[in-house]
């Protein structure tokens, strides 16, 4: 087993969580008042954890770099949240949600964790409805569901195309209630600069007030990192501009193992890159694949004509279109999991069938859905023999009600009307399954340091299914961490407040200052963005949708060289002790430059293809991923040893007692 103990409880799968909750230590309500917990990050996981911990009685301090907890990037999640409610009566169950998630993750996640996730999923919906989250409803007043990729049931709850926003505002309102009660102190526009360890335990953080530039010390009995993923290592991603790996990476440098960094999700339906000025990419929700059909032209000459603007996609006859997902995967069609859909788009574009100027786009077409809905609406509206124009009009209204905000967003960005001409989409970096290694209690390898939500590695294996990020964030935050952390904190009821004048805090603060001064001391040739964009290009070209040994080795060398260049030549105007957005960015990019190298190292060592990690050397004759369960059925957890190249690998073997490992097939 090595030194990694996942602490999965023994016993039957369905009883593990209940048994664990019964077995762990609790802290009595009076003692909770004497215990402080720091929560870094206020998205779904952090916001939910902070609210629940405060409600239980702990003294909570929250930190976020945004000006308000309501702005965390969870807000941008569009499509929905999964829960095994089986309201549709289509055969859903906790087991099915568990099974779909393990399979969707290509058998690289823990059975125990994933079953727990499925088990609490229904509770999340109950909780959110009680909080006033306005989920979509049917005419009878009951909650509505839609389908997402990689599953054969409808278990996704949604609030138009703004589900993440509504769930985050729910968690934010729960936080606000506790702020109003004085149980949460919220430090907004604050960034965690380092984790402070006392006697090997996480006992606080060094934070920077981003307005005044002041360095602050904050102590606590435990520190929760809910700081999201590291997709911005690619520079261009669907993450927010400020999303970063700093908190997780600082913890990694202090001893928290970083697991499966190369497991990154490239989302198939994003608006394609339009030029070099581009600062970020915009997702078009996976829910669109319920109704949109993905295609490229069958004939090369048509693809070229469309690229050159000589042919409109709407003019191309049905038989000249290649609905390649429906062709390759008849069982799941357009609703195959994200990694499969992304690779299939890349395959067609690499073969020369791309449909925009850069040749890196495919069509997502709503014409059939508009016709289908229009006919249905005409029938239910009592219209007999409606003409084509009426059907189209009615159909467009139905589509607008479902996806109106997404269509509007597309039109604003691309300047084309997606009701009249198919959308153009291309894969983009979206989510990172890898993250800080945590045990069943969500504790990292540093005692007292916990990681929740996208910041940890735990539940999605090598590929996350759509609408599961919101589920995991809220499950961790509302229902898992607040209980498991009590087991650890029960030892701290007599500890008393942690002083911030210890030598450990002195040393940590000094390191933070030294690092910032070193950043400011560069000779000043290139801006922070110059380096970030260069790193992004290396990552996208050599660690992106398809990877191989040669390019990964090149990437490691190039990133290492770029990092050296960065520290010598980055140019940051302004000063340390005032508001300075360039300095903020520099600190984040410095950590991406280390993480990027570890990412490539992890991808290089994993000599198999699984989920979002596709190694060109390991594929079947049809181009499908070739997993190697004999040699790689483990979590790769990396221990920091100075330079990323020296990181030491620890393996947590994955044990499957309830599921038979199979080759994933969506055909």
């Amino acid at each position: 087993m090595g030194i990694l103990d996942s602490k999965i409880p023994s016993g039957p799968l369905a009883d593990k969580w209940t048994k664990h909750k019964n077995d762990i230590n609790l802290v009595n309500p009076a003692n909770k008042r004497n215990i402080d917990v720091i929560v870094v990050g206020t998205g779904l996981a952090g916001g939910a954890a902070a609210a629940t911990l405060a409600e239980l009685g702990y003294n909570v301090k929250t930190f976020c770099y945004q000006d308000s907890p309501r702005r965390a990037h969870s807000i941008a999640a569009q499509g929905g949240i999964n829960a095994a409610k089986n309201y549709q009566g289509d055969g859903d169950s906790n087991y099915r949600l568990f099974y779909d998630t393990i399979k969707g993750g290509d058998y690289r996640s823990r059975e125990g964790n994933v079953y727990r996730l499925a088990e609490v999923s229904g509770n999340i919906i109950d909780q959110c409805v009680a909080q006033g989250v306005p989920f979509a409803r049917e005419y009878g007043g009951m909650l509505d569901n839609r389908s997402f990729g990689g599953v054969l049931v409808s278990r996704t709850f949604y609030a138009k195309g703004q589900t993440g926003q509504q769930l985050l505002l729910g968690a934010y309102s729960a936080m606000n209630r506790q702020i109003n009660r004085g149980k949460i102190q919220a430090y907004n526009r604050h960034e965690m600069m380092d984790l402070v360890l006392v006697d090997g335990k996480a006992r606080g953080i060094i934070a920077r007030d981003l307005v005044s530039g002041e360095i602050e010390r904050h102590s606590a009995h435990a520190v929760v990192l809910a700081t999201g993923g590291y997709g911005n290592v690619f520079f261009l991603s669907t993450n927010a501009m400020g999303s970063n790996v700093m908190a997780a990476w600082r913890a990694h440098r202090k001893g928290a193992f970083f697991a499966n960094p190369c497991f990154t999700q490239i989302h198939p339906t994003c608006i394609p890159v339009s030029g070099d000025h581009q600062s970020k990419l915009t997702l078009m929700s996976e829910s669109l694949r319920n109704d949109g059909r993905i295609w490229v032209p069958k004939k090369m000459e048509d693809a070229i004509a469309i690229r050159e603007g000589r042919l409109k996609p709407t003019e191309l006859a049905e038989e000249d279109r290649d609905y390649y997902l429906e062709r390759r995967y008849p069982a799941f069609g357009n609703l195959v999991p994200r990694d499969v859909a992304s690779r299939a788009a890349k395959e067609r574009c690499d073969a020369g069938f791309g449909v925009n100027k850069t040749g890196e786009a495919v069509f997502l077409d709503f014409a059939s859905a508009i016709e289908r809905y229009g006919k249905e609406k005409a029938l239910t509206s009592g219209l007999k023999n409606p003409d084509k124009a009426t059907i189209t009009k009615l159909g467009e209204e139905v589509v607008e009600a479902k996806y109106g905000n997404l269509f509007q967003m597309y039109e604003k960005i691309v300047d084309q009307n997606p009701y009249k001409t198919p959308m153009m989409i291309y894969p983009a970096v979206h989510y990172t399954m890898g993250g800080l290694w945590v045990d069943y209690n969500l504790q990292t390898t540093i005692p007292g340091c916990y990681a929740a939500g996208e910041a940890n590695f735990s539940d999605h294996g090598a590929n996350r299914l759509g609408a599961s990020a919101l589920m995991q964030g809220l499950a961790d935050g509302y229902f898992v961490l607040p209980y498991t952390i009590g087991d650890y904190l029960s030892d701290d009821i007599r500890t008393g407040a942690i002083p911030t004048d210890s030598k450990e805090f002195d040393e940590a603060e000094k390191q933070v200052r030294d690092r910032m001064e070193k950043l400011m001391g560069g000779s000043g040739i290139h801006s922070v963005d110059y380096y970030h964009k260069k790193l992004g290009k290396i990552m996208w070209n050599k660690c992106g949708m398809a990877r191989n040994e040669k390019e990964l080795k090149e990437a490691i060398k190039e990133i290492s060289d770029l990092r050296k260049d960065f520290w010598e030549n980055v140019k940051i105007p302004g000063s340390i002790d005032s508001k300075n957005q360039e300095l903020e960015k520099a600190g984040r990019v410095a950590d991406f430059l280390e993480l990027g190298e570890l990412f490539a190292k992890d991808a290089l060592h994993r000599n198999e293809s699984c989920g979002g990690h596709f190694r060109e050397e390991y594929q079947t004759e049809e181009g499908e991923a070739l997993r190697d369960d004999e040699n790689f059925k483990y979590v790769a957890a990396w221990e920091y040893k100075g330079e990323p190249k020296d990181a030491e690998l620890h393996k947590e073997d994955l044990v499957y007692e309830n599921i038979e490992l199979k080759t994933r097939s969506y055909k």
Partner: protein
Amino acid sequence: MKLHLKIWRQKDASTPGKIVDYTLDGVEGDMSFLEMLDILNEELVSKGEEPVEFDHDCREGICGTCSLQINGEPHGPDRLVTTCQLHMRKFNDGDTIVIEPFRAKAFPVIKDLIVDRSAFDRIQQAGGYISVNTSGNTIDANTIPINKYDADEAMDAATCIGCGACVAACKNASAMLFTSAKVSQFALLPQGRVEAVERVQNMVRQMDLEGFGNCTNTGACEVECPKGISLTNIARMNREYLSATLKG
């Protein structure tokens, strides 16, 4: 295209600010407004000058972080978009663009184009929630059927992103549209009715304490709101407030 930019520069909250002129070349129609500012900043950094600081994060119109008063309008000339989704194709070669922070007494400037909108958080903290525990030990989500029209209307109110454009658009710097959106969301749902009286009173009290102005029904907020939050919400809040006051 080539643009003449007149941008508000202010070192910090206590130093007076002023408009500074910049000329920027090579702007393309496909760029977002913020990407145009990125290019300006890249130029400034390369010259060793301090870049223009502005708030932004998701750049897909949902986080509500970006602001900017562009040629006198919050989020600029386009409708139903935030600044991050405003594209330069809405401008012409040779245009002069005036860029200022959102102006309101309750939104003090932090630096350059960044303002402090924490007053909005405090209004929410005063009552923008339903007081249920987050334990999940509640009734099944489908126990109380909710009329689809009410649910949809609650959702429409709930889509407020808290950007503050309504305040910046209002000649009185009123926060009625923002506050009423939250009051409405809960007023329309059975779960929210339980605390409706206290909620509207507490949130309105906090709104007044923060120094926002009164509503005189000009409707500028609705026009400029990037999410199309309706004035009906203000009417609903007034009704809620009146009935709460009568209940006493």
